């Protein structure tokens, strides 16, 4: 009896989280079926007519499908390629700083941009890179004419990825710094006596220590390869840079909420999620093979 009583209280504690999850996570999952229907308000989700894969086919045959799909892929791959190693390097470098005070201050500065909003980050990119901004003042002084960065499709990806690294790399290194704190200093001492120099010790002691963490971070970021941030891409979009800046999430927004084509938009969104899940499973499989059976699951 006592057991039931105590559990009732625990059910009460978990209830808010459970109800909110059902309402705002699971009900929308059920709502995904509108991707297979011709959704109309008057008929509701259940009452609308089934149309099968009509909207998926429509998207796959759309003239801009390849462009948007490749844009999403390229932007993510670029971000992953640069964004994955840099935090690891930062952590390894921070780990060599022996004076605690210096280390704390450097970390304090490196983490700071993570707390700036994406609106402000993009806003800073706009003011810094504007034709009359500081970067162009230097470029104009050197070459005579400014570069119109924000409306040039050739620069979109680099601005997106590099500003992302500027903002996030320091913060992303925190997890590796934590893992490196677990390295036994005796290992380093023993290796030094055996004649290993610093670089060798980093390679043979520090890197293997953080390998499991690296694997997990890699799986998670690779699994999200198509799920790149809507928020930033949307803010950075201008009519001129659309050839490279239109990606699946921004397209879903435009088709769905702007144009009101709910079913078509939901289909594109579902297409995006499915690719994500496939990538996650695939990358986890590969990493498991390479990482002595250590994967995310």
């Amino acid at each position, binding site marked *: 009896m006592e057991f039931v009583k105590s559990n009732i*209280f625990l059910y009460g504690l978990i209830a808010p*989280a459970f109800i909110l*999850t059902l309402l705002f996570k699971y009900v929308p999952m059920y709502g*995904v079926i509108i991707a297979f229907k011709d959704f109309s308000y008057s008929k509701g989700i259940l009452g609308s007519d089934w149309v099968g894969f009509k909207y998926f086919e429509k998207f796959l045959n759309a003239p801009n499908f390849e462009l948007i799909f490749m844009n999403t892929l390229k932007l993510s791959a670029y971000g992953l390629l640069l964004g994955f190693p840099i935090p690891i390097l930062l952590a390894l470098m921070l780990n060599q700083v022996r004076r605690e005070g210096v280390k704390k201050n*450097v970390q304090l500065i490196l983490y*700071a941009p993570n707390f700036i909003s*994406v*609106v402000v980050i993009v806003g800073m990119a706009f*003011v810094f890179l504007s034709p009359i901004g500081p970067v162009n003042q230097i470029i104009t002084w050197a070459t005579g004419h400014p570069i119109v960065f924000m409306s040039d499709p050739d620069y979109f990806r680099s601005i997106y990825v590099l500003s992302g690294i500027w903002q996030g790399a*320091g913060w992303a290194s925190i997890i590796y710094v934590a893992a490196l704190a677990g390295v036994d200093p005796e290992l380093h001492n023993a290796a030094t006596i055996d004649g290993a120099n610093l670089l060798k010790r980093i390679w043979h002691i520090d890197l293997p220590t953080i390998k499991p963490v690296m694997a997990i971070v890699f799986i998670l970021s690779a699994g999200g390869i198509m799920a790149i941030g809507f928020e930033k891409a949307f803010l950075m979009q201008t009519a001129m840079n659309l050839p490279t800046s239109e990606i699946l999430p921004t397209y879903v927004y435009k088709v769905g909420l702007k144009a009101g084509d709910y079913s078509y938009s939901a289909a594109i969104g579902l297409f995006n999620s499915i690719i994500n899940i496939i990538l996650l499973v695939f990358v986890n499989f590969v990493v498991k093979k390479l990482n002595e059976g250590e994967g995310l699951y």
Partner: protein
Amino acid sequence: MNIKPTRMDKVVLTINYVLLYLAVLVILVPLVYVVIASFMEPTALLNKGISFNLSDYSLEGYKLILSNEAMLRGFVNAVFYSSAFAFLTVAVSIFAGYSLSVDEFVGKKFFMTVFVFTMFFGGGLIPTFLVIKQLGMLNTVWAIIVPGAVSVWNIILARTFFKGIPRELNEAAKVDGASEMLIFFRIVLPLSKPIIFVLALYAFVGQWNSYFDAMIYLDNVKLYPLQLVLRSILVQNQIDPGMITDRTAMAEMKRLSEIIKYASIVISSLPLIVMYPFFQKYFEKGVMVGSLKS
């Protein structure tokens, strides 16, 4: 035992420091530039860029920002949304995290699976929007603070923290005849200040910096949080004409728009900048709790 570094190691260490300080500079220079630029006289900034001549400085940017109604209302709204959101998030996560940390809790596995599954699959933008709409939450404060309040990550963070509290405390209290409820409120909660603090901080900052939910769920300009107001100034380049009092039109607009942007960046980041150094040890703790165990 400490072994002297070799000459080769010293070279590597020096390069290490140089690169690290370079990274620090890359972060600091743009930030410092924004702050200095925000204090400059608009014409001087436009013509000369950053200068170190005292007469080129003015508070004009801040005067314009602080007299702007949309900006102030956005600020007040953001404070309200962020506080309410943080309160709700902390309550939901702490409650759920605690129950999931109790070994004897029947159904623990089931609830955990329900939560974790949402990390991998979601309904997406349109179905979620339709739910919010059906619930009549469009254009209300609820759409901003309720749907995002439950986060799997936070629940796991809280659960991990509670698992770290020795169970002997609970056992002892139980022997003394305390109910699970009494134990939670009298013993566990007072010990939970660090995790409450971490979760509240994350939630507050997250909400303070977000614009997307407000953009899709709110139509009423009066409800806009700061980031949406900032978006129109910084990104869409829509400087509210009311901001510029003497109406010398375009030329004046252009002259002032840059300075308004810099000043608004500083003002909007101010609360976080002030909080930031005090909280460093807490957010590191939070990340570590989350990363090492789960």
